[in-house]
């Protein structure tokens, strides 16, 4: 035993100091992308090996989008970030200054290789007849959604509800606020991330409707059985754009800039888009979109730029300290 300890310590030290072997990438992502990146990482590693002969090992970290952003700001060594919404990458650019603030212009489609939206997951047979956003604010309907302060999906859900109200009530901000206040009065529990809320709804059986990422709703059907739940598409919802970016300074330090860029670009290829579509993310590529059209019912999707003037504005007004969400949730 006495002999083993120094050997272990020495080997640990050398493995830390002289890391050899495959190139390593760390992808810091948000909650619902676990299955997506499991598939995608395997495909990319194969592609990269064939192209360059180099082995690449991609490590994953998942959590609520806001919490993950915070970790990268505090020093989590992410070569790439693939988060739930643009503001969380903006925050990294502003606070840690490890990537430029115009990061979103560097890749096509606002650096968003796939999109999603917010849909309703209800119990089989839809016993409470929830078909539209206006049904979710009715008295006696229990709504499950995570905390917008920590979860990206929850912020998209909140903005989807607000946007729906604006568009159905002559852009009246006060009425939209009342609508969203009603909605959150119906929320019995706020989990910190999308996964937690899905478990609350599906596993623990709480609530009548889960405001869910489209991909997360499909996954829940797959995991828990299509005989227990069904997905309801409201007439309109928000176009959720989960963006991706290379974290310049960290990738440069690790010498992984080239492979990190190739990794993100690969998301835009036919194969990358197919993997996204198979995991229920809406692809950008028209060919792949057409192929998977049956998986993605058409609905009116408004963007955050159209309705809220972009993430910076929406974040400051709704989710900042003392913002609208704080006011309506405290008033509860």
């Amino acid at each position, binding site marked *: 035993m006495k002999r083993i300890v120094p050997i272990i310590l020495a080997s640990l030290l050398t493995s830390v100091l002289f890391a050899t072997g495959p190139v390593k990438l760390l992808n810091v992502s948000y909650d619902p992308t676990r299955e997506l990146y499991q598939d995608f990482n395997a495909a990319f590693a194969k592609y990269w090996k064939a192209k360059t002969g180099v082995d690449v090992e991609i490590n994953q970290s998942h959590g609520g989008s806001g919490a993950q952003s915070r970790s990268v700001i*505090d020093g*989590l060594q992410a070569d790439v970030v693939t988060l739930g919404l643009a503001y969380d990458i903006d925050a990294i650019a502003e606070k840690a200054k490890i990537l430029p603030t115009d990061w979103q212009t560097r890749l096509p489609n606002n650096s968003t290789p796939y999109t999603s939206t917010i849909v309703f997951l209800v119990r089989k047979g839809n016993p409470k007849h929830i078909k539209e956003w206006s049904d979710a604010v009715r008295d006696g309907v229990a709504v499950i959604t995570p905390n917008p302060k920590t979860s990206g999906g929850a912020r998209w859900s909140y903005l989807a509800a607000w946007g729906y109200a604006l568009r159905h009530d002559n852009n009246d901000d006060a009425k939209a606020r009342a609508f969203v206040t009603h909605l959150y009065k119906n929320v019995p529990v706020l989990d910190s991330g999308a996964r937690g809320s899905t*478990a609350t709804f599906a596993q623990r059986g709480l609530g009548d409707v889960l405001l869910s990422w489209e991909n997360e709703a499909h996954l829940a059907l797959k995991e828990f059985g299509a005989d227990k739940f069904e997905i309801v598409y409201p007439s309109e919802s928000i176009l959720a754009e989960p963006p991706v970016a290379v974290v310049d300074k960290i990738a440069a330090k690790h010498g992984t800039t080239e492979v990190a860029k190739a990794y993100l670009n690969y998301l835009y290829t036919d194969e990358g888009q197919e993997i996204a579509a198979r995991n229920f993310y809406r692809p950008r590529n028209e060919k792949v979109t057409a192929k998977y059209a049956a998986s993605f019912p058409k609905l009116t999707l408004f963007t955050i730029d159209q309705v809220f003037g972009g993430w910076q504005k929406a974040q400051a007004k709704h989710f900042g300290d003392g913002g609208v969400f704080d006011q309506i949730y405290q008033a509860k």
Partner: protein
Amino acid sequence: MSAVGRKRVPRTEARWVRWVLISLAVGLTIFFIVLPLAAVFIQAFDKGWAVWQAAVTEENARKAIFLSLMVTGIAVPLNVVFGLAAAWAITRFQFKGRNLLLTLIDIPFGVSPVVSGLIFVLVFGAQGWLGPWLADRDIQIIFAVPGIVLATVFVTFPFVARELIPLMQSQGSEEEEAAIVLGATAWQMFRRVTLPNIKWGLLYGVVLCTARSLGEFGAVSVVSGHIRGLTNTIPLHVEILYNEYNYTAAFAVASLLSVVAVVTLLLKKVLEWKTREART
């Protein structure tokens, strides 16, 4: 305590009161402890032995187990050294700040583990006090193994010291003084007199410390960064599996921790008995 207080109070309760109280206590124990523990094992072996084995030998699980063992292997010896030093100082010497030291040792007991984790983020994080200095030298503490070790050492800090202090206090220092008078060196005295006297208490502290190191979730979760295969300890791996709808695997890995808990309990009982024997 007064003499009256120590006297045995005669049993005046009616039979049914006793019966209700006992069944209440037994019922609650079964409901809150036995049932959940049984549920863990039932879920773990829900899909059979092969699935259980696959779950605990899968690559990320193996790495999580290795990391937890490594962190424990560092944290426990550190705490043994510290615990011995602190208990020695506090029970054998009178000095200014002795009470302060006693209080400080207890801080990790009083602080929520999440706060313990955040303390390290504030100090060593990229935006923290030492962050820029560490970054310039390319030293990674938070979101890497050193951070996990630090957080674990912090939360397990009091276990050994807290166990040894009362034991050494009750034993007094006469035997040690005798050894010195008879010409023993300090090391001889420690090895031949002090250590044999406190060994059961020390082991008891080590057992508690080990159990907590393996099981710590909150503080480690804050500083880990949750990178699969790199900075995930056993409890964090359980959470990940659970969040991936992989319930059987989650409970399989959790069953390992439950085994640790049961073994700890047994060792604790044995050591408690040995310690009491040593004290009398």
